[in-house]
């Protein structure tokens, strides 16, 4: 429509020049390999040749006990990893942000800066530092628990099958709490003064003000945090690899899709690496993440009411 009303102009080369480098790198290094990986998952290496096998790799992944046990275990662990993040990271993040945004709070800048520190550290540092702290050899954790009279509850969490995954999830929560805190804090600051004043005129203050006025207004931000957490969790690898190694011990109890993909792709110890099975696992991760993003875009985001000020 608009094009017809405008006078015809010469081809604008500069648009192409501006777009070309980004498009080229992005397409060549990101989109094509992604498509290539999806395609590889349909092939298998038979006598040095890539042969099209349809969905056979997925049949192996779900049907062959050598693979399916590990796959479902990794998926289950990954779901638990995500649930812990949603239940612990986001509520604490919202609470910290709500406290930080209270008017005329002193030292707010200091708290903000300090609580964000773990987020900028690499997984290698975080994983190892916590491994040392929780280590029964060093004894810092039992010593600290002794101060509050809880020493009897101490066990080497990272070494016990039933606790290791939860402990690692909480370490990851510790590392990333800064992100929900900052995003919610930003959302809370953007609520106009008039809305708060109107609530106060109606006698709504304190906690009920938070629940009735502020929380509904920051729901879209909570939605964004949830989807960021989802994508990040189902793509996680580094923390588990640093703290527990590629075997995600003890006895695969901390194995998540990222570490499973790494082992399948590269092989580990006696198992030989198989790029095609690696691609099949990456495809499953792609579908899971895509599914989550679609649920968010089409079900959650459209139902959240956005308020324009």
């Amino acid at each position, binding site marked *: 429509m*608009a094009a017809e009303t405008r006078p015809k102009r010469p081809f604008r080369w500069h648009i192409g020049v*501006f777009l070309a480098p980004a498009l080229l*790198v992005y397409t060549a290094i990101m989109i094509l*390999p992604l498509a290539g990986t999806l395609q590889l998952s349909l092939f298998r290496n038979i006598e040095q040749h890539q042969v099209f096998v349809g969905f056979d790799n997925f049949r192996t992944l779900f049907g062959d006990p050598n693979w399916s046990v590990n796959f479902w275990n990794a998926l289950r662990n990954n779901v638990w990893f995500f649930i812990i993040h949603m239940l612990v990271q986001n509520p604490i993040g919202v609470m*910290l942000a709500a406290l930080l945004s209270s008017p005329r709070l002193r030292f707010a800048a200091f708290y903000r800066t300090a609580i964000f*520190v773990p987020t*900028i550290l690499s997984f290698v540092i975080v994983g190892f530092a916590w491994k040392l702290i929780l280590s029964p050899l060093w004894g810092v954790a039992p010593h600290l628990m002794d101060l509050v009279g809880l020493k009897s509850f101490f066990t080497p969490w990272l070494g016990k099958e039933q606790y290791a995954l939860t402990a690692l999830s909480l370490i990851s929560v*510790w590392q990333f709490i800064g992100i929900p805190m900052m995003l919610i804090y930003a959302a809370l600051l953007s609520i106009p003064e008039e809305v708060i004043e109107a609530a106060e005129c109606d006698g709504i203050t304190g906690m009920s003000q938070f629940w009735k006025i502020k929380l509904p207004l920051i729901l879209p931000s909570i939605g*964004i945090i949830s989807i960021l957490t989802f994508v990040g969790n189902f793509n996680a690898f580094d923390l588990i690899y640093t703290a527990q190694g590629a075997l995600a011990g003890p006895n695969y109890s901390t194995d998540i899709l990222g570490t499973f993909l790494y082992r399948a792709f590269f092989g580990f110890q006696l198992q030989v690496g198989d790029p095609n099975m690696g691609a099949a696992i990456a495809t499953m991760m792609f579908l899971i993440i895509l599914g989550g993003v679609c649920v968010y875009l089409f079900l959650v985001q459209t139902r959240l009411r956005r308020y324009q000020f």
Partner: protein
Amino acid sequence: MSLATRSLPRTIGAHAILLTYTVIALFPVILVIVNSFKSRAGIFSEPLTPPTPKTFDLIGYNTVIGQGDFIHYFQNSLVVTVASLFFVLLFGAMAAFALSEYRFRGNTLMGLYLALGIMIPIRLGTVAILQLMVASGLVNTLTALILVYTAQGLPLAVFILSEFMKQVSDDLKNAGRIDGLSEYTIFFRLVLPLVRPSMATVAVFTMIPIWNDLWFPLILAPSEETKTVTLGAQLFLGQFVTNWNAILAALSLAIMPVLILYVIFSRQLIRGITSGAVK
């Protein structure tokens, strides 16, 4: 301002919770740094006290500097991060300018295509990326890492920068056009300087994941020549599991540059986040 928001118990409660959490956030970091300056006996007997003349010892640092080639790893990380950052910012800003300034067919579609990468992590393409790098002979080169990180950083950079470029006044650009400036001059001379603050935000967001990444150095460039600090630290820590002095010193050496940079730039970073750059 109502009385309720100013009442004393409420303020004390808020400070108590925030202070508790600040301690939780900082304690592991401080613990590692403090103990890295102690002798082995000091680390185990008094982990929670600062080093005294009796327990002060730099043996850990000596081991790290003697054993690991950390200066070299550090250089690699620096080269990779700075180069990727440069390309992300340059290419990202150019694409963002094209998308926000000109109306052309396929504009929205192009925006969506580039936005795809914000949600879908590049790691999922690793299998094919490795094949591509093997085929082009780029395995174990820093170029491979720079290419991957440039692709990884571009989507978010384009998204954030185009939001900011929409705010640059049209009158200014049109004045430039009337004065006969080319589109390239308008971009480099007029628009880029005006969006510099948002470039800083994008830079921080892009830099942290690149510097901290373990996955791609491990897969694409694990050789001794191309190791980054993160990978080097990981392997070093794996080898020296029982040498606590060396481990604590290596961890502290890895923490300190990031921490110093963060303290310098935290104001900018936090302003960037809270100005609604990420929505």
